[in-house]
């Protein structure tokens, strides 16, 4: 058998396994941050009993859902009901494939990484819709439909907002985009409007406050997750927080230089040391944006469902188009 092929297969299996394993501590860390930071902002202490300073609270929660009873509603569509958590979780896990953690630490450096990312992340809406439909519950169905409406609407400005950056850098590959940012400065300076649109619609895309219409507790109990329990609910929960991490990671890669340090990257730092250096900056920046998302959740109330759609179609989409138009003209005129 072809040695090259075997090597490639081995590398693929290793990378996907590592990424799947990475989702678990990532979800634990993000959930822990969420509990602790919101508590602190509410003038509470937050979890502080399990482990030093309560750092194992979310881990305990994670193992707790494993031990819980897994119920399926009487009239639920069993096969799709079972499949839905998988779809949501796999959408999040698969989109991790193209996240550029550091030079050399990127599972699949596609030349169409950005397209792949948005295509795969968009699959989670199918999972949510299926979960809502299969549960045989009005709250679930409403939540699922809301998620479909919201995520489909916001995917358009979300995708259009980065087309400007893609036109500017002339690439759809994450690593080349970061290489471009190394030469020209972070895209944050080139695409401020794109950044704003991207950030707002990414919050909506991962169903974060203030756009958490999908599981608006006060209106929909828990949206599509209402009938789920045990580890199936755990999968949804994990996927949600992993998606938050992924969105922050992509935001960092697209607009904040990915693994680049705020000062010029020391070129002599090659190989393994360079990878570690890149991972440090990448995770630092990513968790800063996770913090900001949690901070937003501690601050803002939920927007009304009709305002939400109006915002996507009447504000963000035209803005994104204008941004793209200006960028395209600038690229032609200044020959960037």
């Amino acid at each position, binding site marked *: 058998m072809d040695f090259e092929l075997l090597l490639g297969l081995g590398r693929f299996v290793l990378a996907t396994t590592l990424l799947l394993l990475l989702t678990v501590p990532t979800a634990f860390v993000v959930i822990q941050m969420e509990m602790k930071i919101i508590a*602190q902002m509410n003038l509470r202490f937050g979890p502080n009993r399990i482990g030093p300073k309560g750092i194992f609270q979310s881990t305990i929660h994670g193992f707790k859902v494993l031990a819980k009873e897994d119920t399926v509603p009487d009239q639920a569509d069993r096969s799709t009901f079972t499949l839905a958590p998988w779809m949501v979780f796999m959408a999040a896990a698969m989109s991790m494939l193209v996240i550029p953690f550091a030079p050399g630490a990127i599972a699949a450096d596609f030349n169409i990484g950005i397209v792949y990312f948005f295509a795969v992340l968009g699959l989670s809406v199918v999972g949510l819709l299926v979960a809502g439909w299969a549960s045989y519950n009005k709250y679930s169905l409403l939540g699922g439909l809301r998620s479909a409406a919201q995520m489909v609407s916001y995917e358009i400005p979300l995708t259009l907002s980065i087309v400007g950056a893609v036109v500017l850098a002339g690439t759809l590959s994450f690593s080349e985009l970061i290489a471009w940012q190394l030469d020209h400065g972070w895209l944050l300076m080139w695409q401020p409007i794109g950044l704003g649109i991207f950030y707002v619609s990414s919050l909506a895309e991962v169903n974060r406050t203030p756009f958490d219409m999908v599981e608006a507790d006060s209106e929909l109990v828990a949206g599509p997750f209402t009938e789920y329990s045990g580890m199936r609910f755990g999968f949804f929960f994990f996927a949600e927080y992993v998606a938050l991490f992924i969105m922050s990671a992509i935001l960092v890669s697209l607009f904040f230089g990915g693994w680049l340090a705020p000062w010029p990257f020391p070129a002599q730092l090659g190989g393994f040391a360079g990878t570690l250096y890149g991972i440090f900056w990448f995770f630092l920046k990513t968790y800063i944006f996770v913090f900001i998302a949690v901070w937003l959740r501690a601050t803002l109330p939920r927007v009304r469902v009709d305002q939400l759609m109006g915002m996507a179609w009447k504000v963000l989409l035209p803005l994104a188009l204008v941004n793209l138009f200006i960028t395209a003209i600038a690229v032609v005129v200044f020959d960037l």
Partner: protein
Amino acid sequence: MSIPGSGIAKGMATTFRNFFAPKVTRQYPEQRPEIPDRWRGRLDLIYDPFGEHKCEVCFQCAQVCPVEAIDMSGFDSEGNRIRYGMQEIYDERRDPNAYRRAGLAARPMRNPARWDEAVDTPWVDATIDGYGGRPEALVAVFGAVQDRYGYLPERALRRISDRTTIHWAQVFGAAGLGGFRLLPAGGHVVTVCVCASCRFAGGPALLAALEDELGILAGEETADGAFSLAVGTDVGAGSISPAIRIDTLVYGPLDADKARHVVHERRRAADQATAGATA
């Protein structure tokens, strides 16, 4: 006109300040609130060991209440309706049972068997008459009753109250002052509270100390049957934890030495009572 997004920025600034601000949560088992010395806890009508209200509607509490917070109504020994304070205008407030007035189910007697303990009523009457039926002879009558039964049965006390026309509360109070048993031998149940608060504050140490003091394990009875040791979460004394309860009296907060002392004193009193009864 305000700048769009300025409200969001203001809110974010507030939450960010709060992030570093001192927290207001009181970490309960470690940090306890200051409880004033005169705090009496939740007001409740207490029960005697037989599960009956100790309240006799004697109005003493209502009369001494400085802020006139208490009004009450009930029935006297003749069955006449008596009351203190404003006329009750709502039917549900007219119920003489405080628990039913509060919308709760009246508590059942804890031990109906003891309540029905047969007593030689003519003999009790004769004893009372032998002392002339005077209130100052109450303790002597108690002594005679305890000589015969080994303790003061509920029925006998009721009979004494009726015969001497001394208020039941006073009869019961005098009987409980010391030197007399209100339950057959073996009646003292020492309950160590194992609620979360008490456990945290050192309940297990109390249990160990009492097991050592009484020489028995939880759930057992001493060889002479004077004490039994139990654990429970129904002591209801979180603010004075760790607490123990002996029959109906709650003690707390205790440390191991104090708990030993309380039980030791109670045992001494019980021994004296038996000694007095046999003498």
